[in-house]
C-alpha cells in the first residue's frame, strides 16, 4: 500500500533565537513524556529543538522547564 505525507500543524513552537540547543541543551527533549521533540540542524549550521511527532498531550513540561523560555505550547488544533 503506498504511503502519503499529510501535513499537520503542531502545537509546540520553539523560538530559534532563544533556543540554546547549540550549546548542548536538551531539556525540552528530555522532559517530554511522549518524546515528540528532537534537536535538528538549521540551514546556518546551528541547532534548535523541533516538535517532530504530532503526539502532544499539551501537558507543558517542555515550556515550564526550558531555561530560556524558548518553548510555547498551544492547544492542538483539533480540540482548541
Amino acid at each position: 500500500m503506498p504511503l502519503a505525507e499529510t501535513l499537520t500543524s503542531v502545537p509546540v513552537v520553539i523560538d530559534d533565537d532563544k533556543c540554546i540547543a547549540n550549546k548542548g541543551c536538551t531539556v525540552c527533549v528530555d522532559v517530554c513524556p511522549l518524546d515528540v521533540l528532537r534537536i535538528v540542524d538549521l540551514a546556518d549550521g546551528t541547532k534548535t529543538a523541533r516538535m517532530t511527532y504530532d503526539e502532544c498531550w499539551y501537558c507543558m513540561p517542555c515550556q515550564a522547564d526550558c531555561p530560556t523560555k524558548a518553548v510555547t505550547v498551544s492547544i492542538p488544533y483539533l480540540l482548541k
Partner: protein
Amino acid sequence: MDDICEGSTTIECDVLVIGGGTAGPMAALKAKKENPDANIVLLEKANVKRSGAICMGMDGLNNAVIPGYATPEQYTKEITIANDGIVDQEAVFRYASECYEVIQELDSFGIRFQKDENGEFDVKKVHHIGTYVLPMPNGDTVKKALYRQLRKARINISNRFMATRLLTGEGRIAGALCVNTRTAEFLVIKAKAVIMCMGAAGRLGLPTSGYLYGTYENPVNSGDGYAMAYHAGADLANLECYQINPLIKDYNGPACAYVAGPLGGYTANGDGDRFIECDYWSGQMMQEFYDELQSGKGPVFLKLNHLAEETVSEIERVLHIVERPSRGMFHEGRGTDYRKQMIEMHISEIGFCSGHSASGVFVDENARTSVAGLYAAGDMANVPHNYMLGAFTNGCFAGKDAAQYALNLDFAKFDDEQIELEKQRVLAPTKRSDGIPPNQIEYKIRRLVNDYLQPPKVTRKMELGLTRLAEARDDMENNMMVSNSHELMRALEVSSIIDCAEMAAVASLYRTESRWGLYHNRVEYEGKNNEDWFCHAILSKGKNGDYSMRKKAIKPYVVDIEEHEASAYDNQRFVAEESVTS
C-alpha cells in the same frame, strides 16, 4: 534520527521497577531502604524527571485518611460502598491505615499540604460520607521532589527503555524484555522480583475531539502493564468496570469539582441546576451525568459563575498551575471565563484505571499479583479508587515486600526461546518496507472501541466489536510497518491497546448483570444481580492461549457494611426541595 540499530544487552538486578511515574519511584525508594545492598533498577520509557500521569504535579490528595478527620474503617466502608461491594477490603484497609505515614514522608520531601490557621491539615469533604480531600498548594513540585529523593538514594535509573514482555521460569518471575525507544536496541533484564507501575490504559477509547493524544489520561499510559501481566499469566480483575470520567469537553482534562466543590462550585445541567448530590466520581454518579447529557436538560456544565471574584481567582490559581496547567490557555482560546459562563463538560472516553474506578491486575494487600515475585501498584493494580496517594502508598508496600522476596533468592531459570520469540515479535514491523503505519491501526482500533464497547453495553455490539478487532489485529501482526525506533514504540503500544480492547470486551460480555452505574451498564441485564455476581470476574490467559474468565469469591469483609448503608451511592440524583407556594 531514531535509526533502528541491531543489538542486545543483558543486565541483572535484584528488584526491577517498571515505570517511573508515581508508584514506581516510591517502590524503588522503599525497596532500597528495605535492603540497602540490593541492586534496584527503575526503568522508564520516557524520562523519570517528568514521566507518568502527574508529570506537572497534582492539585491535592483525593483520599487522605488523616487521624481526627477520618478513620480507616470509615474510608474502607466508603470505598466498598462506592464500588458496589466488589472489593477485597484488606488492601483498602491497609492503605487507609498507612497512608498518613506516606503523607508525612511526602511532607518531608518538601511537598506541602494545606493547613488551616491552627496548623492542622485543611481537609475538605467531597465524598458522600467522609472527609478525605487535602489540597497541595505547591503540588507542581511533586515530580522534582521525587527525583531528588531517587538521586539521593542512588537508584539506578534507566530512561528510554520500554518493557514489552515479562520473563518467567520455574513458576515465578525471571525478569523483563525491553527495547530502547531511540535505537530499537534490546535490553534483557534478569530480576528476582519485578514491580509493575505502568499506569492506566488511557489510550483505549478515542476522545470526542478525534485527536489520538487528546486523552483524559496521559496518553503515554497505553495499557502496557495490563498486556504484559496478561501474557505472563497473571490474573486481572473486573476489567468490565471501566474508567469514565467527567471532564471539560474537548480539552478532555478534569473539570476538578474536587477543587471547586469545597469552594462552592458544582456540576450543573443546561438550566444551571444541580442534578447530582455528590461530585465524587463513581459509576453511579457517571450514570446520572450520562443521563443528563442525553436529556433535554443537557449538556452538563461546571458552574462557578455564582462565586465571588476572590474565590474564582483562588480556583484558577490552583487549576492553572498544577496537573493540567494548559486548562487556562484552553479557556482563553475559547473566550470562556469562570466568572461569566458555565464551562461545558462531557464524559471521557473509556479506559482502565483503578485510580478512579476499580479494574486492574489483581493484587493483595502486599501488592503481590498471582505470579510469584511479580508486583503491581498504582493505576494498573486493582485497589479501587486509589488516586495519587494510593499509587505512593501501594508502591511502598510493593517495594518493601519485593525487597524481602528477592533476599536470598537466585534468579529463576528461564527458557531462552522467550527472548528470541519476543525479538521477532517486536522487530517484525521494522522488517517490512510496505504496510500500514501504527497511527492508522491505532485510530481504527480506538474508533472500534467507541463504536462497540463503550456503555451502554449491548451483547451483539460487543461481539461485532471483537470480530472487527480481530481484523485489526491481523493487520497489526502481519502488515504494520515502522520507519524508525520512535514509531516502533508506538507500534508496541498499539499491541497493548488492542490487547486491552479485547480484554474489555471479553470481561464485559462475561458479567451478565449491570453494576458500577455507567461503567458496566449492560442494557439487557438491568440492575445488580448479587446472587450470581457478587464476586470478582477474573480474566487470565487460558491453556490454549485465549482469554479465560472465571469467578473469584470476595474475601470476607474486615469492616462490616450494614444493609441500609450499602445503597448510599445508589441514589445520586439531586432532589430539589419542593417550593412552597402560597
